């Protein structure tokens, strides 16, 4: 991580509610990175923590909240006091920005923003006339190319071929838009496991810079089939995040005070992790066929 995230970088830790790499977020805090531009559709607790720890200069986002709970108080304080610059889109605008970045397009067109005040708040939202019907103007957003995108996945092989099941959000676009791509996985598997089911591959190894293995690395978010979302943690975050002193103490205890993810997990109550484990619900197998 130290080699791939630098002060001043544009960083995207993506994963829409699913597979949010808290492991990477905490490591960035420990390394004391500064002046980051943080991009993410839903900043979620992971960016609330990074902002509280003073890592960020700017936030690029589309929905700023603690899903199902309320506000992200550290970010909200920073926005209300003006200490954090923001650049704001809608979800599809952020999706389009990553897609344009991944496809090296000069802009991404989308049917949104007409009649909204968002283009006033963000002059990067522009308009393009269609050559097929010049009166038909469509909104466009510019490409977003992070210096580094970090995603969490269920499994990858040693060559970086990365597989995900369940929600895939914007991870493919966000990763392929980036200069460097870090994948954190629950499990490292043999290449044959990947090759037995190529349809599940979100990113081929040629697009991945580095793979790290961190079981439960997405806690308190979830990993489909591995563990549930820790909804109690999301609720508990609200009073912590409301109180700057308490939030700083939390970072001291759970992030700065532990050397790595393994130590974080060891501090967590075993019963917490056990209770998050789901029952089995197998996908079943399909046959790709052996062709000779």
């Amino acid at each position, binding site marked *: 991580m130290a080699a791939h995230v630098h002060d001043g970088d544009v960083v995207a830790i993506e994963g829409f*509610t699913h597979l949010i790499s808290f492991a990477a977020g905490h490591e960035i805090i420990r390394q004391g990175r500064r002046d980051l531009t943080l991009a993410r559709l839903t900043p979620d607790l992971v960016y609330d923590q990074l902002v509280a720890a003073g890592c960020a200069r700017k936030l690029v986002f589309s*929905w700023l909240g603690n*899903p199902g709970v309320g506000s992200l108080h550290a970010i*909200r304080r920073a926005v209300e006091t003006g200490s954090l610059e923001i650049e704001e*889109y809608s*979800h*599809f605008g952020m*999706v389009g920005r990553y897609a344009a970045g991944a496809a090296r397009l000069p802009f991404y067109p989308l049917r949104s923003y007409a009649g909204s005040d*968002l283009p006033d708040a963000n002059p990067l939202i522009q308009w393009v006339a269609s050559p097929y019907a010049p009166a038909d103007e469509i909104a466009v957003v510019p490409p977003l190319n992070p210096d580094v995108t970090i995603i969490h996945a269920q499994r990858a092989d040693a060559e970086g071929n990365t597989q995900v099941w369940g929600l895939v959000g914007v991870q493919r676009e966000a990763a392929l838009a980036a200069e460097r791509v870090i994948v954190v996985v629950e499990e490292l598997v043999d290449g044959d496991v990947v090759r037995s089911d190529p349809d599940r591959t979100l990113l081929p190894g040629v697009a991945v810079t580095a793979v790290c293995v961190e079981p439960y690395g997405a806690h308190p978010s979830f990993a489909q089939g591995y563990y*549930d979302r820790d909804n109690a943690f999301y609720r508990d975050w609200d009073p912590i995040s409301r109180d700057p002193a308490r939030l700083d103490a939390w970072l001291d205890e759970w992030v700065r005070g532990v050397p790595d993810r393994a130590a974080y997990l060891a501090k967590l109550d075993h019963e917490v992790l056990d209770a998050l484990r789901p029952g089995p619900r197998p996908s079943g197998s399909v046959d790709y066929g052996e062709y000779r």
Partner: protein
Amino acid sequence: MSATPDELMIAAAAAELVGVRTVFVGIGLPNAAANLARQTVAPDLELIYESGVIGSRPTRLPDSIGDPALVSGATATMSMHDLFAYFLQGGRIEVGMLGAAQIDRWGNLNTTVIGPYEHPTTRLPGSGGACEIALNAARVVIVMNQTRRTFVEQVDFVTSPGHRHPEGTPRPAWASAGPTSVITQLATYRFGADGEMELAAPHDGVSEADVDAASCWPIRRASST
């Protein structure tokens, strides 16, 4: 035992989904309403979550739109790109359900800021998918709490467009029909042909005076046609 205000809202919102096939669901009250509708008045309803799931049959009421219980047993998952581009923008969503912190008589919704954008009194979550839902879902059902702080003369910020901008700009030609109903704890509202909100019916036990007392502008009555 009488229903709570939330229960009233959920039941009224569920009633908006009779006969509907596809609903784009946000979290909170709309989620509860859509799940209630599927189990009662709209058995063919497909719940489509912006996180990228179609046909969810959650085994529990999800805490967030990214609950793993929405995925296990669903009919399809999809990247957010494909879901927003081909399903929402593609015109395949019949009803979008939205909440808001403020609404005006034209159905403009604010979920961005209270106060000026650059120096807000209160920073709210922002659009999420709401801006494009408001413009692309065939029609929009709004579910929100009603007070004089939420039913306002002019919203502080138009996050999601209604029938015309406060400055008078009409809804664009390519956009869908927009808001058709607003459900609050007090009443159900619809919109006149000119796009202005109208009282359809107060809920049981709510008077028209109660409705008027919880709005900054005098709410028009539905014409009797």
